[in-house]
């Protein structure tokens, strides 16, 4: 089985050549989020409808009189991408049943940033997942409200400095741990939950394709490095994404019907998190003691995940 998996992984020639998110959009240079959206579109293909919450991706991709989208795309309010996606899915189902549209399979996708997923859009997302709509929700997590200028969200990691969680004499920046969104989605007992990072494009595409093939709700959590908000040079997006995975800060895994599986890209031995913190200005103020506390947490969390992967294996292994 592993051999087949690996064969699947190392087949870049099979990737869809069609660009469904065209170039020329207004994303900051070095934006990993827009790279992730592009990969997502490649994996989804043409038969897709996307509902996008307010956020960077809406602003950069759709400014009048241009649009970067080559698939049907709707921008909705900040809090309701999952609800609108639910409505689109139900609407398409009704039209198909009545014979008003041809009988091809169309995947409905909701997308939003960390705020639109974990904070303001959380209720809508939880409802959509619970109702079991045949849709994918993709969270592009750049770990703060970047569109309004780097304010903390519940996706901001401990110790990061943001404009509303500023680091200084009395504060180390963000004082709470990042909300564990994939686990919350697993708790909804939906068929498929996965984490992806655009620094691993083949793993990324494979997981989106899997989500697409699954009937019912699936949730993809995408690590989206933001050079502007993370205070690091714009050429570092891909390398920092790799470091996040290699240090265990953002482990790549998938959960299919409750069965955990770590991605083959996960290293056997994790690098220390200070390697990940070093190129980012948002962590510059952290003392070695503070880093040690965060390191401990990352280690424990990763061990928990590895144990789950050991005992709750995927059905096909």
């Amino acid at each position, binding site marked *: 089985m592993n051999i087949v998996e690996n064969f699947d992984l190392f087949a870049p020639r099979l990737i869809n050549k069609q660009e469904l998110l065209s170039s020329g959009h207004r994303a900051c240079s070095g934006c990993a989020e827009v790279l992730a959206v592009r990969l997502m579109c490649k994996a989804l293909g043409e038969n897709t409808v996307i509902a996008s919450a*307010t956020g960077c991706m809406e602003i950069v991709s759709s400014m009048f009189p241009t649009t970067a989208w080559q698939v049907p795309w709707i*921008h909705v*309010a*900040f*809090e309701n991408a999952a609800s609108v996606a639910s409505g689109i899915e139900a609407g398409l189902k009704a039209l198909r049943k009545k014979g008003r549209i041809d009988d091809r399979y169309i995947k409905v996708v909701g997308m939003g940033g960390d*705020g639109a997923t*974990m*904070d*303001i859009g*959380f209720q809508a997302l939880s409802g959509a997942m619970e109702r079991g709509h045949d849709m994918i929700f993709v969270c592009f997590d750049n770990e703060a*409200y970047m569109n*309004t*200028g780097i*304010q*903390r969200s*519940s996706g901001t990691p401990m110790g990061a400095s943001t*404009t*509303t*969680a*500023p680091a*200084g004499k*009395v*504060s180390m920046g963000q004082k709470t741990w990042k909300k564990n969104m994939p686990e919350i989605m697993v708790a909804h007992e939906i068929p498929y939950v996965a984490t992806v990072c655009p620094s691993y494009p083949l793993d990324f595409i494979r997981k989106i394709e899997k989500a697409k093939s699954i009937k019912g709700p699936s949730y993809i959590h995408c690590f989206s490095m933001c050079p502007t908000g993370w205070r690091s040079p714009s050429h570092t997006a891909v390398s920092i994404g790799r470091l996040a995975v290699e240090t265990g800060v953002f482990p790549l895994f998938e959960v299919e019907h409750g069965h955990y599986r770590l991605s083959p890209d996960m290293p056997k031995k994790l690098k220390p998190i200070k390697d990940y913190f070093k190129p980012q200005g948002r962590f510059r103020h952290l003392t070695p003691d503070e880093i040690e506390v965060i390191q401990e947490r990352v280690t424990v969390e990763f061990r928990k995940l590895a144990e789950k992967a050991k005992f709750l294996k995927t059905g096909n292994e």
Partner: protein
Amino acid sequence: MNGDEACCEGALAAGCRFFAGYPITPATEVAESMSRRLPEIGGIYIQMEDEIASMAAILGASWGGVKSMTSTSGPGFSLMMENIGLGLCTETPCVVCNVQRAGPSTGLPTLVAQGDMMQARWGSHGHYEIIALSPSSPQEMFDFTIRAFNLSEYYRLPVIILADETIGHMNERVIIPQEEDIEIVNRRKPTVSREDYLPYEADADGIAPMANCGDGYRIHVTGLTHDDRGYPAMDAKAQEKMITRLVDKIRKNRDKIIRTQNLYLDDAEVVVVSYGISARSAMQAVRDARGEGIKAGLIKLDTVWPFPEELIRGVAPRLKAMIMAEINGGQMVLELERAACGACPVSLVSNFGGAILHPGLILNAVAKAAKEKP
């Protein structure tokens, strides 16, 4: 400093020690300033998960005994509506700063508008009176924020600051007076014994003394229609009594609440009425008109709600025309028409948002109105 920062400083000067908010352009700088400044003086800043939670949190904080506020813009203001109604029903002092941008929906997040005037008045369901102030400069952002806290503490209700993107992002000199020179009003405390205290039993002026949670008084707070004890009372009589008091405490104190700044009003033939950033365009237009020998005047609304209808009704009969200058399709002009009551023609100079009004537009309207035969 810019208007958003001035709003933050005004709140702190008024004694605000709790802020719950959510990032939204163009009000984000209020939250950012609060997140830096509040911890320095022992206050608490919380970033909530959305605007519904922000508004609910400041109501809670206020009942905890702390002066509290939030700031937002269009879409967030829409989300706050239900809880603003809760604040009105439970008579909870707090301040909401709405730095307006163009709508509806996401609209023009980074550009100016004054389209939330009627939403501020009627946005929450049911019948009520509201107080809303409209600053025209960063200095007024500072001053009006203090006044908003004073009004909210005195009259026990959420007071709304209707600022706009241009004022919020405009940098001007702001003079912050010495602490002892700032007038501060605090909520009225119960003077009766614990046994005799009824949380919604009003004094003669219609305002009930407020015991905070933890003061030792028995309080019951509910969004249901309630009697003097604060307990739900579900009939037409109780509704009549409660709403009458909520409405009257504002209506009967209109002369104390309403403030306008009038320019050349005494001998004016054409009067421009405006507020917020538009009042500055209007002021320029009125001065230019005077330069051209036209007897123009200005009424700048510092409080937009309640609307100064007595003032308008008084001056309208001796005017050739009144002109409302505002950045929306015509909202406050409806109030102006209602108050002028046909005594003089009323017209509108406006756009739908995205840019401030050019003084020349207002000047043209003034010049045209001045030429008309009375």
